[in-house]
């Protein structure tokens, strides 16, 4: 760790650290990786692009030692190595940080940072020692003020957890650091901190493999990019040589301009009118949503976007203010009550809050309308299967059958099932909280299309998103939140990433 002086940053010479040669991996009939060869260099951030199912995750699992390739070899510093377990990979300095970091939630940050490497004297561990080591690590890598060593991991934000996981890798002297969709659960400011850290690590010679669906991140952060499709590496080159459109075309065979549908639905009667809505998390929210309209809700993580949804959906108790749904004032004290007046919510964390992973697609779709499908509480199966068939068809859910278990579906299809559940219920207002998080580009475009179709049928949509391009591309109006308040509303025509960010950060408009 001697290269930390900034002078060396640009002079570091990229040399191949890790090379994959002809890696193949099959799972039964499915070829997850097919003869993939890649080289990762020191002093470089290497972007890995591809839709879900393209083989990126399998590749990372091979690098982490979770999977063994069927054929091919992994070369580290010119020597063939075998990664039989994560332990082997760590010993060789290869670390993979997954989307959901594997930390112990009920231990402090310091304790997690010392797991597997407890600072001890004659096997006597002192709390002080653990905290000292952790604090040194945190300060040294520029996280002072962001993470506290004595904080419980369960109290940490997703960004903080990610950083703890990366610090663990640094602690062990990672030479190759793989980040799997690191920003999918982060807000812009948190992402920025992560990128700063990546840049510092890169400057020290670490080879970083960066997996992301977000095109701008790839072009900004990565010197080199490899694109995967159907288990094969379809392109490899310097980022500067490829345009974003080119990359998307290589990934999916579809240009960016076709990502977002043309908004053509007519604005109808008022669906929801929130006036002065206040809960413990948000204050004085005024928001109107009209039928056939998509209203975006923007802001940094913690600004209270999801909390507006929670107030409207009857999860958080309102301490002041009124909610009118279709012109009638309502007191919504539970999700059940909200659903009864025609509000639906596809929550932020679809696996934890939305879906029943051990149940079938069919069960997941019909849940919200099961009562109305029943006579004397006996579910009429034919009516149910007709409904499920038509809904999954309309939402373009791809699964082997409607009896497939939910957990076997890809993220995009899981989200479509969640949409199908609400479409079956046909609410007047649908709240979509981060509907495309962690979903590949192709499925994203489909979901945008579906949302557009719903509004054409007269549904009002409240779209909460961390992705500014998504809000600008899809929403008719965007309300921006900061510190639990709506601080501005921008019409689609005037919305740019810059104006939205300025509002979200509370910066004055430049003259």
């Amino acid at each position, binding site marked *: 760790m001697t290269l930390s002086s900034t002078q060396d940053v640009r002079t570091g010479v990229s040399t191949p650290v890790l090379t994959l040669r002809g890696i193949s991996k099959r799972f039964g009939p499915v070829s997850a990786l097919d003869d993939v060869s890649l080289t990762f260099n020191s002093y470089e951030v290497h972007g890995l692009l591809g839709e879900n199912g393209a083989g990126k995750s399998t590749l990372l*699992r091979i690098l982490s030692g979770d999977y063994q390739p069927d054929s091919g070899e992994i070369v580290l510093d010119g020597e063939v190595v075998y990664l039989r377990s994560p332990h082997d990979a760590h010993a060789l300095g290869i670390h993979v940080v997954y989307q959901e970091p594997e930390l112990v939630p009920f231990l402090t940050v310091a304790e997690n940072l010392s797991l597997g490497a407890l600072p001890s004297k004659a096997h006597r561990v002192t709390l002080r020692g653990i905290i000292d080591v952790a604090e040194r690590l945190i300060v040294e890598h520029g996280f002072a003020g962001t993470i506290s060593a004595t904080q419980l991991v369960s109290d940490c934000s997703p960004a903080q957890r990610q950083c703890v996981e990366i610090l663990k890798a640094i602690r062990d002297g990672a030479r190759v650091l793989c980040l799997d969709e690191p920003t999918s659960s982060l807000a812009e400011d948190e992402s920025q901190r992560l990128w700063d850290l990546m840049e510092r690590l890169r400057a020290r010679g670490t080879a970083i493999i960066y997996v992301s669906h977000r095109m701008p991140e790839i072009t900004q952060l990565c010197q080199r990019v490899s694109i995967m499709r159907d288990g094969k590496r379809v392109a490899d080159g310097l980022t500067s040589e490829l345009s974003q459109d080119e990359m998307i075309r290589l990934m999916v065979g579809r240009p960016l301009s076709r990502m977002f549908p043309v908004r053509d639905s007519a604005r109808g009667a008022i669906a929801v009118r929130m006036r002065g809505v206040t809960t413990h998390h948000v204050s004085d929210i005024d928001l109107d949503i009209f039928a056939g309209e998509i209203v975006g809700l923007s802001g940094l993580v913690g600004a209270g976007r999801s909390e507006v949804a929670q107030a409207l959906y009857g999860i958080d108790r309102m301490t002041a203010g009124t909610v009118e749904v279709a012109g009638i004032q309502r007191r919504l004290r539970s999700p059940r009550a909200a659903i009864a007046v025609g509000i639906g919510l596809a929550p932020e964390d679809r696996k934890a809050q939305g879906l029943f992973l051990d149940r079938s697609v069919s069960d997941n779709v019909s849940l919200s309308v099961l009562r109305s499908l029943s006579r004397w509480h006996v579910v009429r199966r034919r009516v149910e299967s007709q409904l499920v068939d038509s809904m999954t068809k309309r939402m373009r859910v*791809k699964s082997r059958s409607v009896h497939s278990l939910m957990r076997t*579906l890809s993220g995009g299809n899981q989200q479509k099932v969640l949409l199908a559940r609400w479409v079956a219920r046909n609410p007047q207002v649908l709240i979509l909280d981060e509907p495309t998080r962690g979903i590949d580009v192709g499925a994203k475009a489909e979901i945008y299309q579906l949302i557009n179709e719903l509004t054409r049928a007269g549904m009002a949509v409240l779209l909460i998103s961390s992705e500014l391009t998504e809000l600008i591309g899809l929403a008719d109006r965007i309300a921006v939140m900061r510190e639990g308040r709506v601080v501005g509303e921008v019409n689609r025509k005037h919305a740019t990433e810059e104006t939205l960010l300025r509002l979200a950060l509370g910066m004055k408009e430049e003259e």
Partner: protein
Amino acid sequence: MTETSVTARLRGGSAKAGVIAAVRSTNFSLIIAIIVLMAILTVLRPTTFLTFDNLLNIAVAAVLIGLCALPQTLVILTGGIDISVGSNVGLSSVVCALVAAQSPSAGGGVLAIVLALAVGTAGGIFNAAVITFGRVSPLIATLGTYTAFQGVTYIVTQGKSTAVLNSTLNNVNSVQIATVPLPVIILLVAVVALALFMKFTDFGRNIYAVGGNPTAARLAGLNVNRYLFGIYAFVGFIGGVAGIILTAKQGAGVPASGAPDLALQSITAVVLGGAALTGGIGTISGTVLGVIILGVLANGLLLLNVSALYQPVPQGLLLIVAVLVQQRRGHFDLRGFLRLRRDPIPAAALKADGTE
């Protein structure tokens, strides 16, 4: 693609998936285990084991565990547990005996039955209230009532057994329909009713949802607490039914009947039947098989003249072996097995379901 070809394709697919699912399912391996166990016993005791009378004995002996295991399945499906059900059976049983001992008339017998059901249900409602309104974890709540109900049992009886001479009540045990005793009929009716309830009603489906993911269930508009309340109250009601049968069987209300053990035995049966203690996974049919395997094992040990002192050992080990087998089967992959190396669950990689 035409409508018919789509449905044909779906049917073909689900039939094939059905066979694979059946082979992998918990029930399949349990049925194999039961067949093997019964084959061994038939060979060892050719004249006694596989007779109608002996099979009936197994059924009669399984009635109380079976009755407790049915609502226990629902509880475990919601991710909870009810340790107090056996104590509740004991309490209902002595209440039933005390009331029936007051009068030999038919009215006295019916009153005893009604009050036993009321006491059982009240016990269940107490658990339900503590768990849903008090937000106490089911394990703690029912651990408390497990002890408390036993205490009440001794208080109301002052520690003494009560003989029952009421013929109406004794009939509960002695009446036979086509040589099958009434308690077995009651168990069979309860099994069929509950299995149909879980499979065909919206309530049954919602119980799976509540157990599989309570947060998602609430956000999807289900009243999770109402379901939990109903289920724990239902456990109490069935506990009352079991209590009546226990009293009728013994011809007396015995405070030291050992009924509290029924709770752990019923949990054993449910877990044997493939239910996950984390909730959301489990079936009534699995539980029934779990009860059968416990019953056959107990009967077999008896026929083999194994001392009663030794019997709990194989029963306990069976549970552990069953769970070990179930865990292995989930990860079982012939390819990985033959190569003798740790292979990940293929399902994880097969998520390409949607992108194939």
